[in-house]
């Protein structure tokens, strides 16, 4: 028995030709999720959740900055030795990094392909001014805030992970605290960090809520909590991250 679950062919009553091409061959599970928008949104939600976990623990870890140079550098060293001696040095860290790279890649690829789909779905825009009722600033600027965060991520890596010369000329591998304080003491760099983290907060405000819908996590009993969670999470993460450049600039840290 070959049970194909394809929809029956279109009847002549359907006088509009399909707008989107559907893949002719279905991929095996779980790749099949990549073949529909609903599946891609599911992947976006899962990778988004993973990235949320990352930004959260990244910010929590960086709070060590407030405990001084020794603690902070010790923490940075600890990350390299995560799960040591079960795994060799830096292996756990690299596994996490690979996971993050994959999550970022899928999140961005899904966003790009769904954006194209949405542009195709309305090639001619409304000719009069739209009056939005529910769509808020955050939900309508996800693409922009996402791009800002993505570009910032590259800058941030160049600044404090790779130590690219023209961005962070004083960079020294292993001196995490000195690198951070040197970098954030420059007003221009601090401003970049602050602006990017505001964008991150806005992205999270919609993303952390939207995630529940895309995953189908919906129960009228706790639906109110989903909004509160997203708002709280966005404020918490953005707040922690924005506090670092401010603390360095004002001399609280450094």
């Amino acid at each position, binding site marked *: 028995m070959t049970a194909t679950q394809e929809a029956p062919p279109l009847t002549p009553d359907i006088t509009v030709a399909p*707008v989107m091409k559907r893949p002719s061959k279905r991929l095996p599970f779980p790749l099949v999720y990549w073949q529909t928008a609903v599946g891609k949104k599911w992947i976006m939600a899962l990778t988004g959740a993973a990235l949320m976990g990352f930004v959260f623990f990244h910010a929590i870890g960086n709070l060590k900055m407030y405990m001084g140079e020794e603690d902070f550098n010790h923490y940075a060293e600890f990350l390299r030795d995560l799960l040591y001696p079960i795994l060799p040095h830096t292996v756990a860290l690299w596994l996490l990094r690979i996971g993050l790279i994959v999550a970022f890649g899928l999140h961005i690829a899904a966003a790009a392909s769904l954006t194209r789909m*949405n542009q195709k*779905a*309305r090639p001619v825009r409304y000719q009069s001014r739209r009056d939005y009722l529910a769509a808020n600033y955050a939900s309508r600027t996800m693409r922009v805030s996402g791009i800002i965060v993505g570009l910032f991520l590259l800058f941030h890596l160049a600044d404090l992970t790779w130590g690219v010369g023209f961005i962070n000329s004083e960079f020294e591998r292993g001196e995490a605290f000195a690198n951070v304080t040197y970098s954030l003491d420059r007003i221009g760099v601090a401003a970049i960090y602050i602006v990017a983290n505001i964008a991150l907060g806005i992205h999270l405000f919609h993303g952390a809520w939207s995630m529940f819908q895309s995953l189908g996590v*919906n129960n009228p009993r706790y639906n109110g909590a989903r909004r509160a969670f997203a708002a709280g999470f966005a404020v918490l993460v953005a707040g922690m991250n924005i506090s670092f450049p401010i603390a360095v600039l004002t001399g609280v840290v450094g």
Partner: protein
Amino acid sequence: MNLTLKVWRQDGPHTGGRFETYQAADIKDEMSFLEMLDIVNERLIEDGREPIAFDSDCREGICGTCGLMVNGQAHGPQKGTATCQLHMRTFRDGDEITIEPWRAAAFPIMKDLIVDRSPLDAIVEAGGYINANTGAAPDANLIPIPKPVADSSMDAAACIGCGACVAACPNSAGQLFTSAKLNHLNLLPQGQAERWKRTEAMVERMEQFFGSCTNHGECQEACPKEISIDFIAYMNRDYIKAKIKNRKLQGQGFP
């Protein structure tokens, strides 16, 4: 009251269109929006001009034939109201009202304010049915259905297929309509036999025509039947599950 209308006029599917301005004088507040347009049309006909083409049928908010973008809002400013049930008392004397057709690639404009919404039918055709036994009618209430489940299914079944959700969505996504049509069957015991097949078929048909949901929630605000985006979440969940369920079904000959 006296109003100024800016109405989208377009001769046919493949011609360009433009806004034209009309004066609507002596409009009474108890008139519906469509009655107001009828009056404007009568005057246009008297002047020997082409009346404004728009769709309507029941004019009591149950058929889903009407639907206009009024001042940038699908079905106009009143929540939970189809255009035919929108009354002129929601406007003030001297207002300028802009009227545009639904816009989506899947809803080509036929003429003026009329669009072809047959892709919505295509979604229902793909799976909006249940198998029923023929023969003697079964006893009523033979299948116990919890009241909240029946209520929820009924809420979904309230969809009149007007397409305002697509029109209001910044992505032209068909999620609210599809999830309503899907869930009023998926929630009930009678709909279980085809549940997973239906979910896959309707979602994949939807994606041949419409955009992808980014959870703005605009559809829920525009919907004249106030269908909740909760149904979209249920649909997403069922779709993800359907892929796993169907794999089991296909165990004896997975392509």
